[in-house]
């Protein structure tokens, strides 16, 4: 299931503001994530989970430290480099789904493929496959407003997988869902990690969700609790 580290985070600091009012969101964060694993990032609100995910995904830049994804130093990339990385290497799933409301589920899923100019026929085939994977093949033509929260998050996951990323970053993907729906979404994530061979870094503070992860990284006050890379969770 796991190979070498796909993600290597070393000595990452992130500070917001300056002077005495500065907030240290991340302090000397270092850890590795092996390829093909699902890692849960847990911690209380304000502990730095989202900041860490943003830094890892290149949505934010650290003040210090490096983030290497599959051999690419994300912190050294310019905007175009980050855009290329996001098109193929890293995908995101957000708590608020982030779907385009006027596009159907299939069109939302196909959006990343449009950016990479995948031919229409191949795009449609890939979209159909992914919707089948997340169990929404029958809802392909429905718009986000016509889907339930869980279905919308499934569409978001399908969209994230569309460009076959190596790293999937999910920030509280079950935050707006009830427990049962959240469990099914987490199970879906678990399933795609295994079936697609993607590496997933998922932030959550639901203990039950953690049980589905290969590994759990706890973060508190911007620091990783325990030795970096220590396996504190159990694989399914």
């Amino acid at each position, binding site marked *: 299931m796991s190979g070498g580290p796909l993600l290597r985070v070393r000595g990452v600091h992130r500070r917001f503001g300056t002077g005495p009012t500065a907030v240290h969101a991340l302090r000397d964060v270092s850890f590795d994530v092996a390829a093909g694993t699902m890692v849960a990032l847990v911690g209380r609100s304000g502990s730095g989970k989202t900041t860490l995910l943003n830094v890892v995904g290149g949505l934010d830049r650290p003040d210090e430290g490096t983030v290497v994804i599959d051999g690419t130093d994300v912190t050294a990339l310019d905007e175009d480099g980050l855009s290329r990385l996001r098109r193929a290497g890293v995908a995101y799933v957000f708590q608020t789904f982030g779907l385009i409301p006027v596009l159907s589920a299939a069109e939302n899923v196909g959006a990343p493929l449009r*950016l990479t100019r995948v031919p229409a026929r191949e795009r449609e085939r890939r979209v159909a496959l992914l919707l089948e994977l997340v169990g929404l093949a029958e809802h392909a033509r429905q718009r986000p407003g016509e889907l339930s929260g869980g279905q919308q998050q499934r569409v978001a996951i399908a969209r994230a997988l569309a460009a076959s990323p190596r790293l999937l970053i999910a920030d509280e993907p079950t935050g707006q869902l009830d427990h049962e729906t959240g469990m099914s979404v987490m199970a879906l994530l678990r399933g795609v990690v295994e079936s697609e061979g993607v590496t997933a870094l998922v932030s959550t503070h639901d203990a039950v969700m953690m049980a589905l992860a290969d590994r759990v990284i706890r973060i508190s006050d911007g620091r990783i609790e325990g030795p970096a890379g220590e396996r504190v969770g159990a694989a399914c």
Partner: protein
Amino acid sequence: MRGLGWWRARRRWRPPVPHWPSIRGRARADTGPLVLAAAVVAAVSLLAGAAPPLLRAAADDAVRDAVRRAGGDADVLARGNWEPDDGPTGGRVRAPRLAEDLDDLRARAVNELDPALRAALRPPVALVTSDILKVTDGSVLRTFQLAYFADDRGPGSGPHVTWIAGGPPRAAVPDAAAPAPYDGPPWPVQVGLSEADAEALRLRPGDRIPVQDARRTVKDVRVSGIFRATDDADPAWRLAPWLLHPVVGADGVGSTRLAGLLSPDSLPDARLAFDDGQFRRTVRFAPEPGALTWESGRAVGAAVVALKAASGSSGALDTSLRWETRIDAVLRDVRVRVDAASAQASVLLIAIVAAGVLILLLAADLLVHRRVPALVAARQRGATLPDVGVELLLESAAVALPAAVAGLVVARAVTPGAAWGWALPIVVAAAVAGPAFGVLAAARATRDWRVPANRTPRRRARHTGQLRRATAEAGVVIAAVAALVALHQRGILPAVAGDPAADQAGGVRLQASAPTLGVLAGALVLLRLLPFGTRLTLRRSLRSRRPLAVFGAARAAATAARVLPPLVMLVATALACFALTLDSTARQGLVDGAWRAVGADARLDVAPAGVPATAALARRVAAAPGVRQAVPAQLTDGVRIAAAATDVAPRLVIVDAAEYRRLLAATPLPDAPQLDRLTATADGDLPALVRSHDGSLRPGMRLELLRTGAPPVHLAAVGTAPAVGGAVDVVLVDAAAATAAGVLPAFNTVWVTGPGAARAAAENGAAARVVLRPDVLRASRAAPLTAGLLRLALVSAVALLALGLLGLALGAAATAPERWQTLARLRTLGLRPRDARWVAAGELLPAVALAAAAGPALGLLLAHLTLGPLALRLLTGQATDPAPVPPWWHLGLLPVALLAAVAVVVPVESRLRRGRRPGEVLRAGEGLPDAVLGRRSLP
């Protein structure tokens, strides 16, 4: 049941309590939008507050200008019969103090004047004139009149003269109170002649003037001396210019009038020389234009009407005063023009105020959008909706009122006054919109019930919202249709010209609001189509291979349901187009009006003395370089024409019909092919073209041209005459045909066309008044009402365009957070930053493109529908209401400005957000969704 619930609700109710720290905090946090709203209120208040006083000042100037131009027509005349001069033993008795009696009459006339009227008039001149006598020397038709002047300095106080031969008229008999038998010989009377008149009559002091009255009774009028006026320009001579020189046409076509000046000594003799009805005394008051204003003009008009109503009958034999004047008609005409200008200005002001209100609604929407989290927090802290409303009202009032006051104070400083009435809607919108939207948003965000989960209730809720919007839109459309119908049926002018009640009650406001309501209704209908358009674009772009087109179209489709931002742009652009078209139409109308007024590139109005040489003058002018045509004509106003059962007094035009037709063909003046009919005779009658404002002169009629001392000339109306100058009634005949019919033309006008017309006219026009079309056009443009309206139209167009651009910026700002959150999410999919700008532009473009394309079209449509009834002809001097003249180049700038604004807004917005990383945007964006903000429900 109601009682208990009501009682509980009443017990729960408490007066709203504003939370001052919240008010201060929100004001500090949103200083920018609040300052923007204040700036809009101040600017629109300044414009709306300054325009009416400026218009009123222009109206004052227009009243003075009209009275000045009316000349003698605006004089107020008091006529009174003489005291009987019958002697106790039969016959008449010479009245030696007749000049003093005339002073008494003048004093009586002054006393009868209303104080308001007296204040507007100059000191009176008493004038005595005889009947028109015929000179019987056997040459051309000449007439003669005896006249006497006296101003308020007493007897003999007329204009100064120098006697160059003989002396002033003396009493004809040594006995001051000599009797005159009824059937005695003609009573002798002495008069003075001017040099010109004496030369024309070939008389010297001591000679008898061969004259007789209409009953062929010979009069014994002798020349006492020959005088030269000390000052030809003395206004008193204006009353009887024939005293200075012969005047052609004063007594009808082909006649020349001359006159003799009486003195206080010869006045009693003149009285005895004529019967009572042949020798009249008049007190003449010339108006003082500088003393007149729009307000005093109303009072003067009313006083004149009252004076005329109380005036004695012309048939009465007593010495009561009979009042005559046309100043009331002059004032009525100017009031009509002022009313037209006021209504046209109202059209523009309503447009500005409406656009200003829409901008303020949009600003309030933006402000509320930013404040929802704070409002929700306030509600969660326990603030009731009335508390929130009062807090927001206090804040918006604190912004709107000082801003409006500042705008009005500036208006007061730069204009003669400031009208607050027009600023009121702006202040109300600024003060109320924010609180209303804020309370609605707070209520939606914190109400107990949420959006239903089931589809049917959700659909029902959606339909309810759509029904509300459709109802509001239907209301606007109905109002627009009503305003347009009222405008076309009633016109733009109030039923009673200058009616102050109509002015105060906004009597024509419905009609004046027709263009704005029409634009508003049209814009609402067009915005109904916008979502269909964006969805169509999205469908097409989904089939394309360009991802940016898909994302841009998707964003545009997502925001197409928002009405207010595109509505502001569309309405402002359409109204700016309307204002520009109004300006352009009025300017072109002034050009046409100048052509109509002058009749050519230049016109020579030949002085009476030069009339015999007019034909030669025309030939000289025609030979000058750069002159294409020089057409001589006789223009005589107020000729007497017997038509059917009535007499009319049109302008008689005698001109070579073929030459005149060529002249019309060479100018933008309407061609008159019926001129060809004038050369053929019609059953021996003189063929004529006729034109009248009331149908009293119609083709097919047989008319008679009445002449003093000569038989009438029979005319056959064979067609419609072209408009000649400003005359509304015209009779036009061919010069050769007129000569053949015994009407000898006395050409007093030369129309000149060609690039060298002005120069040729100036070089050859020593004996004529030169009227140049460019000068007339310049004067028309500078006329108070016209200049004011043109300035207001341009200012309105600029202000409306600025409001439209501001609407674009505000609309972009209102949707920016959502747009950049979406773009940040798209960036997580791999969208490059520079591509994000194209997507943002793609979102903004559909609404802007709609405003850019449909705005001018809508403005032009409304111009076509409403410019006719706006009565622009009253300002431009055209014969008919002008057709709209679209200023295509300027209209082309409107879309360019809007599209350029998008090209500016997107990079600026992108630059402002460049510092924020996608992570920050995504965090910040996880606030309240649109459903909570109620965006779709807001207008």
